[in-house]
């Protein structure tokens, strides 16, 4: 038949991003974990560091040090954790198999997942930083907004791809949350996300953190907020290191990605609840 002209790739991609966002918004538990959890951390840290002078002799709020880290944590939850768990569960439910049977190009599906991860991460980070600015008095020079944005986009794109890789290697939707947390949380503790190990950390901790992309993300992002940073807030080596991980994630995602439920050919437990 000749009256078939495919919808444009750009329109489809935008539609997929919107669709993924909608799925996210309507999964309250996911929204809770990604957006509210880091905020709770922010409030707790605010209480813990109340009156602590992290920068003696300077007029700097303690939140200046932990708010950016928590914003990164929110962003990584929205991408790595959320994408990894969500995609694995939709696979088990047989939704991915249905999608594979449509003319939607596979890369556009994945692009939608990544795009939506970036959008949600941006939302989470904006909320965190807004609370940081308004409630906890953090500050930022206007000329560092762009470096922060560049770092942020590279970071969340990297962690979205790693989320896709996580979904690809997760044996099932049920094991995905455990896998996500078991890989993210220990790394988070050596990556200047919750607590800063900037002051004289043991060398092995430092090295451990250097290997994973999370520290690269949080350090590069923090540079835009660091009151003592004299040099440029761009950290090309850290961005490059994230890029290496992004590439590795993309390769695993593409090679190992499965569209069929892990149990049987159909949507076995198809109608189970999420998470």
């Amino acid at each position: 038949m000749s009256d078939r002209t495919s919808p444009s790739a750009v329109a489809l991609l935008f539609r997929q991003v919107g669709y993924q966002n909608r799925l996210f918004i309507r999964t309250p538990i996911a929204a809770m974990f990604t957006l509210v959890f880091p905020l709770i951390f922010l409030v707790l840290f605010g209480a813990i560091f109340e009156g602590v002078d992290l920068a003696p002799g300077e007029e700097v709020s303690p939140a200046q040090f932990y708010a950016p880290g928590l914003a990164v944590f929110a962003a990584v939850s929205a991408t790595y954790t959320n994408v990894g768990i969500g995609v694995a569960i939709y696979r088990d439910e047989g939704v991915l198999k249905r999608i594979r049977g449509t003319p939607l190009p596979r890369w556009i599906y994945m692009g939608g997942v990544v795009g939506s991860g970036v959008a949600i991460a941006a939302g989470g980070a904006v909320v965190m930083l807004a609370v940081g600015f308004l409630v906890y008095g953090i500050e930022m020079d206007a000329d560092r907004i762009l470096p922060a944005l560049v770092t942020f986009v590279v970071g969340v794109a990297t962690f979205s791809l790693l989320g896709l890789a996580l979904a690809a290697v997760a044996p099932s939707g049920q094991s995905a949350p455990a896998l996500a947390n078991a890989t993210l949380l220990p790394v988070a503790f050596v990556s200047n996300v919750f607590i800063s190990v900037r002051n004289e950390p043991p060398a092995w901790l430092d090295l451990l953190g250097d290997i994973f992309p999370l520290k690269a993300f949080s350090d590069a992002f923090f540079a835009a907020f660091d009151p003592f940073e004299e040099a440029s807030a761009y950290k090309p080596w850290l961005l490059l290191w994230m890029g290496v991980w992004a590439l590795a994630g993309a390769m695993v995602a593409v090679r190992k990605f499965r569209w069929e439920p892990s149990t049987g050919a159909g949507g076995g437990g198809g109608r189970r609840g999420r998470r």
Partner: protein
Amino acid sequence: MFAVTVNDLTKSYGFVKAVNGLSFTIEEGEVFALLGPNGAGKSTVVEILEGHRTRDTGEVRVLGRDPGTAGQEYRDRIGIVLQEAGIERELTVREALVHYGACYSRRRPVDEVLDLVGLNGLGDRRTHRLSGGQRRRVDLALGLIGDPEVLFLDEPTTGFDPSARRHAWEMIEGLKALGTTILLTSHYMDEVQVLADRVAVLVEGRIVSEGTPAELRGRAESETMIRFRFPEVDPSSGPVVDMLGGLVGRTSLRNGVFEVCTVDPTTDLSLLTGWALERGGQLEGLEVTTPTLEDVYLDLIGDSHGAAGGAGSRDV
């Protein structure tokens, strides 16, 4: 012009030969049904044609394409209703139809599709608040939304109440009238009788019978089923085997009941009653009926199923 050709298709899962040298063709605009028991290989065949599964050997063409390598442009022209697939629970029925519809280059209006599958009034409900049968209709709706040239329906009416089944049949007939080529799988002989132009009965990955429903029905109408029990007789003893072997029809033993499928009931009845009278015995529960379609089907697939008591369902 054939919409679908399958030639000597095989597919194994480890040691299980799911499809074992299968060949058939479907003409454009035809409704073709694969009928067979659980595990016969129906879904495997259909999913190979849909491009969901790989094949081991054999030649497969749908709309002139090889589904194993065809891409987006192929999937734009087919509609798939899987035996089991998930639906995003976060979406309403209408949202799902709009979303999936947007992937196709040509699509049916959402309201028309809702109407076709009998979901009008439920468009704004979240999919996880639907009943099982209603959700199945969403599956059907999603198969139709892209206005397919070839539609694959893997047990489309499973879980439907009787009226929904009739409704689905009407819908499928309507699609057929519009020229859609349809490959249907089913466990129900009556469904296949109503819908299909041609039927292939599949057992253990092979076609054991193929023809129009009328041809299958013909078999049913030309044969008579005689049922009875011999309570005190060992069915494998020499005289019994000899006597049964002398009948015109085929004999099988199901749950202790002998069934004789015959084109000459007068002769066979006289042989049987004569034999029983000679021995002073009774043909208990004697029953003479025309086999139903279900009987024909069971007879076709019978060897490996249903036949209890050790005797095969073909000639004893």
